[in-house]
């Protein structure tokens, strides 16, 4: 069950989310929203690829599906925008059940590439769909009117609390029996089945959960940008970002994606401020990825965590 310390973290997260939304400057809020969305997306992909062992190269499909579903429902109904945002993960999570049942016939690399194909097909279909604005996309007009106020403020509050709540939820989940089965899946799928775990069902549960989470994060991102096109929402760059952040930080760990996100966005902001171009930034990031994976194949966090823990215990010992 949930621990007191985790409840305290949740409460602190809620406070920080509300205070941040009220007092942080609007420009910084946009950046923070982006950081938090990337973290949420990466954590979702991490749950699927890192824990469940199912590498998907097409999770941008759920970013696009989530955002388009949100825009369409918000624009064509009177349902309040933030309620639509809560509805989107439920819808996309359900949609992922039949998709998963079909895609699971493909294994490993075939599944990964198959998911990518799904995302590309969705992009093409969306571009052809005139009722979704075709290639020129859609503007967010909840109930037919322009969004008033500053959507980045509630968006930040939701993203910030969502990020904290997600980590707490994952920690709690990994302590349950289904969580233990997920950890076992990460180690050895055949052995998990030999222990009586219905591996296919567990894969499907995790696939749907990550689809739902990814769609919610996608919807949230496009609320702050107010505008969506198929080429943007279904782009492979979402996938590259999720993968980069997770693999550099530490696949199959809860802290890894947070560390990866900080590196990705921190380096971008620092290099942009110093006057480097986007191309140069990606060269540096690519080189950083190669170096990290050569020195610490399991990612930065699994490499650093034992040292941090050791430093911490020796320092507390010397104090005592």
């Amino acid at each position, binding site marked *: 069950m949930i621990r007191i310390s985790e409840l305290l973290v949740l409460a602190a997260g809620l406070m920080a989310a509300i205070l941040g939304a009220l007092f942080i400057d609007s420009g910084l809020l946009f950046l923070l929203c982006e950081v938090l969305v990337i973290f949420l997306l990466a954590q979702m992909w991490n749950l699927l690829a890192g824990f469940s062992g199912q590498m998907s190269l097409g999770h941008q499909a759920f970013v696009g599906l989530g955002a388009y579903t949100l825009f369409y429902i918000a624009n064509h109904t009177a349902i309040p925008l933030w309620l639509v945002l809560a509805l989107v993960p439920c819808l996309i999570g359900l949609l992922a059940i039949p998709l998963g049942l079909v895609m699971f016939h493909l294994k490993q690399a075939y599944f990964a590439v198959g998911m990518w194909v799904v995302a590309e097909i969705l992009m093409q279909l969306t571009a052809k769909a005139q009722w979704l604005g075709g290639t020129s996309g859609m503007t967010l007009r909840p109930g037919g009117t322009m969004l008033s106020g500053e959507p980045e403020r509630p968006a930040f509050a939701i993203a910030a609390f969502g990020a904290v709540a997600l980590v707490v939820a994952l920690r709690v989940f990994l302590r349950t*029996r289904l969580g*233990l*089965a997920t*950890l*076992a899946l*990460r*180690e*050895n799928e*055949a*052995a*998990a*089945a*030999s*222990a*009586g*775990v*219905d*591996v296919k069902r567990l894969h499907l549960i995790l696939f749907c959960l990550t689809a739902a989470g990814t769609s919610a994060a996608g919807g949230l991102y496009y609320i702050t940008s107010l505008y969506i096109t198929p080429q943007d929402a279904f782009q492979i760059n979402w996938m590259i970002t999720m993968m980069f952040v997770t693999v550099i930080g530490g696949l199959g760990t809860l802290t890894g994606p947070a560390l990866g996100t900080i590196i990705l966005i921190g380096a971008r902001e620092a290099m942009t401020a110093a006057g480097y171009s986007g191309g140069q930034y990606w060269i540096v990031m690519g080189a950083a990825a190669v170096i990290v994976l050569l020195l610490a194949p399991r990612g930065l966090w699994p490499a650093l965590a034992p040292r941090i823990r050791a430093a911490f215990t020796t320092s507390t010992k010397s104090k005592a």
Partner: protein
Amino acid sequence: MGATEPVLLRVQGATKTFGSIQAVDMVDLELRIGESVGLIGPNGAGKSTFLSLLSGDQQVSAGRVSFEGRDISRVPAHARVVAGIARAAQIPQTFGRLSLRENVLLPSLFGARLPQREAEDWCREVLAMVGLDARPDVPAGALGLLDRKRLELAKAVAARPRLLLLDEIAAGLTEPEVETIMALVRRLQAGRAIVWVEHIPAALRGTCERLVVMDKGAKTHDGPFAEVWADRSLQEIYMGVPDDDISAH
């Protein structure tokens, strides 16, 4: 005592083909609670494939596997564990980053379907049974070969199977270590049936009262251990030469 018990496992004409290769060929087998069967045969005889037909890791191409009167030929592996069939693999399939306790907890929760608290107690009991209860919180990846084999056995036992399949669990161990494993298996015999595939006859002799021999996918012998072991045609299977040829030269 075995004959008075009802039939637990009934295999009828089990056959497994891979392309043109007949790995298991029309094998029949009946097992009762309390029976321990040693299964031997030369390399490639189809012993491990036969075990996987029982565990559900592979499914029969033809024939039938019934367990407690129910046809389970098409039931997948995880559901057979729940039904009461567990296998200890030849190469220990442990979860390296999980603790010993968690390794055993998983089959207690999912295989034996125990509620959390009962499962925790059962885990302690199983770990004590195999002699791994001193440090239940170390990760399984830190164990040596004998301890990994013990843990593999513990995982199978934790699922509370009525049919326990042992696939060369003594292979690669030293003689005293084999003794340890034998003693363990003997403690597991009560209340269940065991099928033990092993290349070390001494390990089987001390534990199994019945011996089954497979060769080229087919069952060639089935009977009391001493009787089958003394059978002269057994040498023929292992040496690949008829007895007469040996005496003639």
